[in-house]
């Protein structure tokens, strides 16, 4: 799991928690030790082999819990071992000795650890983990984490959308887990409790909740089926055995009715019931044996009436069937529908918006293999995989500075942006624009995050410059900084000519600056519905001898141009 997802920290904290719980509740056994100690050792070694994790597996606080519990379990195991070889008296002496020495050592170690952890700014926790522990953390300090829609807390409807009836079965499952609380069921309870909390903090951790919810509701369903089928079975077999019971009773010529017999036997039966309640299974098997009539009588008391259990069974099956239908629907509509190919249903049938792939295919076939493409990081992996071109930033968001650089370029005016992109050896800039067809998750809507992330590293980008009275707008009320930034220009270049007004269907407003020209970029490709627009950086201008002073500060790599421009009289670009 370490290979695939950072969510593994959940597991490596959950397991120690469970082990700790077992130890505290006195359920320590050699099995627990055998299961846990190798897991920590091997797990840490294997995790450290994954390049992303590396030494983080022993250095960050996320992994600390497992080591702490590792130490504790060894201490406990040692204590049990000592207890086994020493006489009780000696053991007491040893305990006092060890406890006094151990406490001192522990205090010292803990003090050192706290000092170490406290010395690092994030207390050794990574940003994502911290935002889990403190849901407001990310929005305060790390915009790049807060900017991802997956990192937002989910809404209530999304719970019902994602786990549907399981939401109601989970509490029942938790209760079922408690009935006989074993090591395994305590783990399930712990798992569901923590995952519910985490899914409440971030939408994407719904992924962690899903298996837990499935397990607990499975337990709940299985228990329910157990009870219902058990009682049905009893009622059916009971009917046949009742005749025998009746016969026995008539032999003693006491014409007691069947219900009376039940009543008379009731007190003693229930008394017997209690001790043997521990394992319901036993009793159930009992009920099946026609030879044990007395038992069957006992069973009858736990049984529900035949009709109600049959109806409940049918209802449960129906519930399951509806859930399956819902799952198929959700899998088809919500999960499988790729976010890269969009569809809309109109009166004349299905309309496909395949603009992303159109743009990526264009990049793939009509640009040089070495060309670099700059876009917001959301499209990084897609560009790499589908367009087969090098990107500047992609969805692995470790390198915050790099993303901030692109964010800064997007929020800078054209010339500054051109310089940044040119210094990054970028040939093409890709922006996603939904204004023409009303595709809401486009770059203009994400733009504030670019400003924030960019501003986090390059302080000359200030968020208030892009907001008018704290409001983000792109209409005529927008700030000049906003209307002159690269993102605005690349998105709305020649947009006004489509309808004459420049009405943005996502923002539901007319754009602020309608007619403008690009000086450092040229439109290279725009897809059918304008959803992806690709711009090419114009080559650097030739320098003219008289004007070299002006562009001295430029970082652009036009080293050979002065010589050439010397021979040329006229600069073709001016």
């Amino acid at each position, binding site marked *: 799991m370490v290979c695939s997802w950072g969510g593994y920290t959940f597991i490596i904290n959950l397991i120690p928690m469970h082990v700790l719980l077992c130890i505290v509740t006195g359920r320590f056994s050699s099995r627990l030790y055998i299961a846990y100690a190798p897991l920590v050792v091997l797990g840490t070694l294997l995790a450290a082999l994954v390049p992303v994790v590396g030494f983080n597996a022993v250095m960050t606080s996320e992994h600390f819990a497992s080591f702490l519990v590792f130490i504790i379990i060894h201490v406990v195991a040692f204590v049990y071992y000592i207890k086994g070889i020493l006489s009780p008296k000696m053991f007491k002496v040893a305990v006092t000795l060890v406890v006094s020495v151990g406490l001192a050592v522990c205090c010292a170690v803990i003090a050192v650890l706290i000092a170490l952890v406290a010395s690092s700014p994030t207390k050794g926790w990574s940003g994502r983990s911290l935002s889990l522990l403190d849901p407001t953390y990310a929005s305060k300090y790390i915009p790049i984490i807060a900017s991802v829609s997956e990192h937002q807390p989910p809404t209530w409807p999304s719970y019902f959308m994602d786990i549907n009836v399981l939401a109601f079965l989970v509490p029942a499952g938790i209760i079922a887990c408690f009935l006989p609380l074993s090591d395994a069921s305590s783990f399930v309870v712990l798992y569901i409790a923590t995952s519910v909390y985490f899914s409440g903090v971030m939408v994407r951790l719904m992924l962690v909740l899903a298996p837990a919810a499935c397990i607990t509701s499975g337990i709940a369903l299985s228990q329910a089926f157990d009870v219902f089928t058990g009682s049905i079975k009893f009622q059916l077999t009971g009917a046949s055995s009742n005749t025998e019971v009746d*016969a*026995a009773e008539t*032999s*003693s*010529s006491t014409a007691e009715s069947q219900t009376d017999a039940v009543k008379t036997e009731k007190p003693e039966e229930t008394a*017997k019931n209690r001790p*043997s309640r521990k394992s319901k299974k*036993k009793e159930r*098997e*009992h009920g099946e044996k026609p*030879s*044990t009539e*007395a*038992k069957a009588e006992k069973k009858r008391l736990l049984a529900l009436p035949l009709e109600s259990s049959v109806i409940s069974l049918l209802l449960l099956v129906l519930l399951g069937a509806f859930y399956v239908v819902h799952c198929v629907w959700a899998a088809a509509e919500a999960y499988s529908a790729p976010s890269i*190919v969009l569809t809309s249903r109109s009166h004349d049938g299905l309309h*496909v918006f*395949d603009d992303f*792939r*159109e743009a*990526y*295919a*264009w990049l*793939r*076939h*009509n640009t040089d293999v070495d060309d670099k493409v700059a876009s917001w990081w959301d499209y990084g992996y897609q560009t790499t*995989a*589908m367009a087969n071109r090098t990107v500047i930033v992609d969805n692995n968001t470790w390198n915050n500075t790099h993303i901030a650089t692109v964010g800064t370029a997007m929020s800078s005016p054209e010339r500054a942006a051109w310089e940044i992109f040119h210094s990054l050896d970028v040939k093409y800039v890709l922006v996603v624009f939904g204004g023409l067809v009303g595709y809401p998750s486009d770059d203009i809507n994400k733009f504030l995050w670019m400003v924030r992330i960019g501003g986090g590293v390059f302080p000359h980008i200030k968020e208030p410059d892009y907001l008018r009275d704290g409001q983000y707008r792109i209409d005529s009320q927008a700030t000049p900084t906003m209307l002159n930034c690269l993102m605005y220009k690349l998105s709305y270049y*020649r947009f006004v*000519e*489509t309808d004459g007004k420049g009405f943005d269907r996502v923002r539901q407003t007319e754009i602020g600056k309608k007619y403008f020209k690009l000086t450092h970029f*040229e*439109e*290279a*490709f*725009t*897809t*059918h519905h*304008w959803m992806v627009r690709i711009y090419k950086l114009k080559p650097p201008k030739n320098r003219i001898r008289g004007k070299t002073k002006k562009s001295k500060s430029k970082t652009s790599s036009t080293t050979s141009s002065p010589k050439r421009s010397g021979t040329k009289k006229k600069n073709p670009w001016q």
Partner: protein
Amino acid sequence: MESFRFCFLMLTIAILASPALSDLVLSKVDRRIYLTSHIVRISSTMKVENAGSEKESKVLLAFPEQQAKNMAYLIATPHEGKGKGKNPVVALPVEAANPKDMPAALTLYSVSLPKGLAEGDSFTFDVLAVFTHALRPIPEQITQADIQLVLYQDSAHYLSPYAVKVQSLSVKLPDSRIESYTKLENTKIHGSEIKYGPYENIPSFSYSPIAVHFESNLPFAVAHELVREIEISHWGNVQVTEHYKLIHGGAQSKGEFSRLDFQARPNVRGASAFRYLVANLPPRAHSVYYRDEIGNISTSHLRGDSKKTELLIEPRYPMFGGWRTAFTIGYGLPLQDFLFESDGKRFLNITFSSPMVELVIDALIVKVVLPEGSSDISVAAPFPVEQWQETKISHLDIDGRPVVVLKKTNVVPEHNQFFQVYYHFSQLSMLREPLMLISGFFFFFVACIVYMHADISISKSSASYLAKQQWEEVQAVIQQVQNIISRCLTTHDNLEASLRDLSRTGNIQACKAARKAADGLLKELSKELKPLLTFLQSSPSAAQVEELVAKERELQEKVMVKHSTVVDGYEKKLGARDIENRVALQQQKLTALRQEVDDLLEFIDEI
């Protein structure tokens, strides 16, 4: 270019000095140059006359090197008047000729006439020559708004090693917008057609260059490379997969591409671009797909009737000059339409080239994948192709399927002719793969069965193995014990039943008999039980088993006592109520004991 043409002219003039090859004379030549597509087709009707005395059977056709380089296809057919049928069966054999005294700048082909021409005889035949890349875009780079202009160069006079008596030339253009054209004497223009001639009595090797510079916005679709894979499955399908690498071969586009302009005025801004291609697939084509490396391309339409299937595909983006794209189309065809049998050999008869309309293919590779086990493979193609063999390993293949690879460069739609691949294939080989699967699963299940039944532990003397075996034995014994106990219990039940009978019928004798039988049975059972118990002595569950047996004994005794009491009571003719009272206490104990025995049985059952 101009200077080159001039050189060429000088060269041809030099050629003029060389003597005529033979005494043939072309009495009439009608040439029609079709520039209505990016594939240039020159169709000429020639009447050849033998002016000499010797019998001639070959006519030479000359092409300047410049043209010959681009020539994709050349066919000569006897002239059949108006009803022009290009029947390949009657095509005249054409082969490259290389007479000694010909200048190097000319490439010559000789047409063999069906029968030799005697003195004064004449023969009329048609020649169709197809050229690719013969239209040169000028200017070479255009913006989106520009129209695409192309230049075509040829000679107004028919270049021939023979003297031509009467000749005419007409050039058909896509439309009447002509930038410029060479004006010679007798040049007429009718709408989109330029006519040169007629010219009379032109000597051999005469060359009079003309150039036509005209607007052409036709799709310049060129496939750089096309790999066609035709896979035969004798289960009833011929699967064709075509991988295209397409380029717009016209003028390179430069500068901005504006979607706005393209959408607003597609015929003006982006006239040179093409948006779609049409493929005429064979009839009854099914499972058609159109995709590229990043998935299905949703912009395609399929129309089909009994004669053909028309597939209209749109690339992901409009193709402007110099833009490239790559895609794959695939379709399945019914086997019986394409695979036939003759003289014990099977042969595939399928078209060679791409089904796309007006597509030039620079390099075409046709791979025919035959079923595994085919042998004696031979290919019959209507024109020369490069060929070799490969093998392809696919699903469930052992030694791979034989693949015939045919390669041809410079392919035009005229090459879309049927070719044949002959091979031997035994019908039994078809069963190979299903049998393989069946036997594979069979052996898998057999292995599973063997595994479940065989004892495959390595060390027969290891502690765990012995313990396991012992445990199994113990379990078997416990099972036996359980059986015996349950038989005891049924005996008890029988006794009870006999008591009930007694109360109903009062038949004491029967009851006693039942008692006797039960006694005997129980004795037997306890005898059986003994060795088992001694065996179980050492096992961990011995205590429970012993307890069970003890309880059962007790129960047995109680039942006996009860039975005797009741029987006694009946014998003494006591009232039913009385007997009931006597037995009541025993009955209670009995139920309690029975309960315990049942519990124990269940407990043991769970071990």
